[in-house]
């Protein structure tokens, strides 16, 4: 295979596989946050910012994969 083809393949694999984990994790966080808000609607103001922060932390592994992908493609 040519270098360009391998690069495209590697980038696709990196982001595709790297997105699985954070996607599942963020789904779990969102569902738990919704559950908590449903159980106790008064604290939704406290839960929502916490949900965003934890989601951003979970997302970071996906972002690592993305950075690697971008470096493969444009670096």
């Amino acid at each position, binding site marked *: 295979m040519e270098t360009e083809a391998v690069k495209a393949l590697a980038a696709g694999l990196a982001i595709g596989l790297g997105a699985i984990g954070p996607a599942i994790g963020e789904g779990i966080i969102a569902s738990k946050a919704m559950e908590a808000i449903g159980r106790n609607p008064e604290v939704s103001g406290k839960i929502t*910012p916490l949900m965003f922060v934890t989601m*951003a*932390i979970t997302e*970071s592994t996906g*972002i*690592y994969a993305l*950075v690697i992908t*971008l*470096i493969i493609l*444009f670096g």
Partner: protein
Amino acid sequence: MELNISIAPEIIFYIKSFPVTNSLLWSLFISAFLILVTLILRFSLKMVPGGLQSCAEVLIEESFNFVKSVIGSEEKAKKVFPLFFTLFIFILAANLFTFIPGQSAITIKNGDGVISVFRAVMADYGMVLVLTIISVIIIQVVAIATHGPWGYLGKFLNFKSPLKFFLGVMDIVGEIAKILSLSFRLFGNIFAGEVLGMVMLFLIPFIAPLPFMFLGVLTAIVQAFVFATLTLVFITLASEIEPDELIEQASI
């Protein structure tokens, strides 16, 4: 038309041998803007606040209450609040300036071709890395000030049992990983937002990029908040004395 994406910022001109990149230019511009707004606020303080002053008051008061609720005491909150708020407001301004319409149309021509004068500041890894290093150094200083130099070293080099030694080594790795995870998160999000916007604009120029722009605005605000909050949380963790350590200190 072809996509023009590069990870390194483009160099606009040189001062002697010092390269001035477009992201450096914009970070200076954003700093000047923030300083100007602060000075205007400072010299127009009134007992009955006007529009700008009440906005600033609400923002600062709410952030201070947030910092206090995370770190626990008002005394500590007063110490850490300037760092938290500076990081937050600088990253927020740098991210939101990306969405001023028409700024990407300003270009200049130099030896290498046509270069956009504007670049999202946080899409330059150097800038993000410097911010991260500042916060990580402060975290370490707070930890040393809380535990004392020997207590701080003892956290990493522990010879009481093989397991504790292994955990101490893992802690060293964890401290180094903090730099990578903090900086990659901010850089990755903002740079990916830029690339996504550019690719969508390239594929379908009308209407289709709008939802992605909205997502970008959301990311800009959330990531500024997350960076500042994580720094705050790490400082809080570093400034707390663990229960077993308290027992040790009491027995001495």
